[in-house]
């Protein structure tokens, strides 16, 4: 999976948002709200080709959770990004 080019993660107070700012995304009129965990994952995979396993590894590295929970949570965030049409 790879995110669309021209998306930008921004901090809004204590929250995080993703907005479309690139030339190719002028018709992408959506704004996505991210919690701090999703923002951490975003920062580490944006601009790269990544898999759900990469996300799970990032969660384990940062939060020390077990593999099963990490798999479940990363599958769910990967799906949420897909539903929001954030992939190329």
């Amino acid at each position, binding site marked *: 999976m790879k995110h669309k080019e*021209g998306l*930008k993660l*921004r*901090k*809004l*107070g204590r*929250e995080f*948002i993703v*907005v*479309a*700012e*690139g*030339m190719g995304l*002028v018709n992408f*009129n959506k*704004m996505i*709200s991210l919690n701090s965990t999703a923002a951490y994952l975003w920062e580490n995979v944006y601009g790269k080709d990544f898999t759900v396993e990469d996300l799970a590894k990032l969660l384990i590295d940062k939060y020390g959770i077990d593999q099963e929970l990490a798999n479940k949570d990363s599958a769910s965030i990967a799906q949420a990004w897909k539903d929001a049409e954030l992939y190329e």
Partner: protein
Amino acid sequence: MKRYYKVAEHIFSLDMPYGENAKCWSALGNYKPFEIEAPAGEESVILELTLSSASVVDGIVAKAGAEAAVGYAAGSSVSAGSGKDGEETIGSAEKFKVGEAVQWNPVNVLDGGALEPVYTLLGEPDEPRLHIYRMKDGQWQVEMAPITAMPSCASLVMNPESSRATLYLKRRSAGKFAIDNALMLMFAFRTACMNTLEMHSSVVMKDGYAFMNLGKSGAGKSTHSRMWLENIPGCELLNDDNPIVRLDSEGRAIVYGSPWSGKTPCYKNMSAPLGGYVNIIQHPENIIERCSVFEAYASLYSSSSGFKAVESQADGLHSTIEQLALNVPCFNLKCLPNGDAARLCCKTVFDALEK
């Protein structure tokens, strides 16, 4: 002759190849309240627009001495300008048929070379149309027309910083449209990283505060403003379409009137601190709710002008919008176009201000 204007404490200039008493200046009466004496130092002027005297032939600036060819070939859906007032007239656009968008294939207005399209603003058939292209040296070329059915009526060539531009008119009759749009666009682009937002909003002032009505085209922003004016004592319209919001040195949001106000001639050189802003949504009953910071950000983001594909502008817009979203109350107002909606809204925004 060059004239200077100050809008939201930003100074800009307009240079036109006509004398002081030429009719074209009086056609720009919306700028009159904002006119100032030439400033002592040019460095305080943030942007300069020059109207070229050169004519444009087949999309390219004609060489000196070429015949002034304004208008279009026979068979075009748009009638050529009458030209009877001569070149000193820059009246409003003449009547033409609203229909399908015509195809535009502009070339580099200076040398006839290729352009890279980067942004298109194509609204309803009766709404203005604007296309932004990148020229090969980092400059921008902007083509514009008052409605989508019309061929481009002017080319704007702007430097990468949006601080200097030359406007080439292809139709003298659309001169006022082109000058207003060129200045609005430059102002939005140039001030995006100066704690300033050029908004699409209708603003009412009351008791020393300004309240902005936001919403999609046709949502009833202007109508809701009118409901305040007709039903609540002590209200005044500050601007009906394009107010400017600027953060002052203490981070307070101040709303300023501007020379641009849509269809309502309301060009007031006044300002007031922003008391709140409201998303207007048509609804069969009147309901008002406080927005989350996220919703507030989203509504300001979609109501502010600027070219987000330019990183410095996107960064500037974000920092100003974030301050407003975090610090100024925002509401969703689902409403009917009536006095009760205005009274409910007015009471709610003032209650929030007192807290």
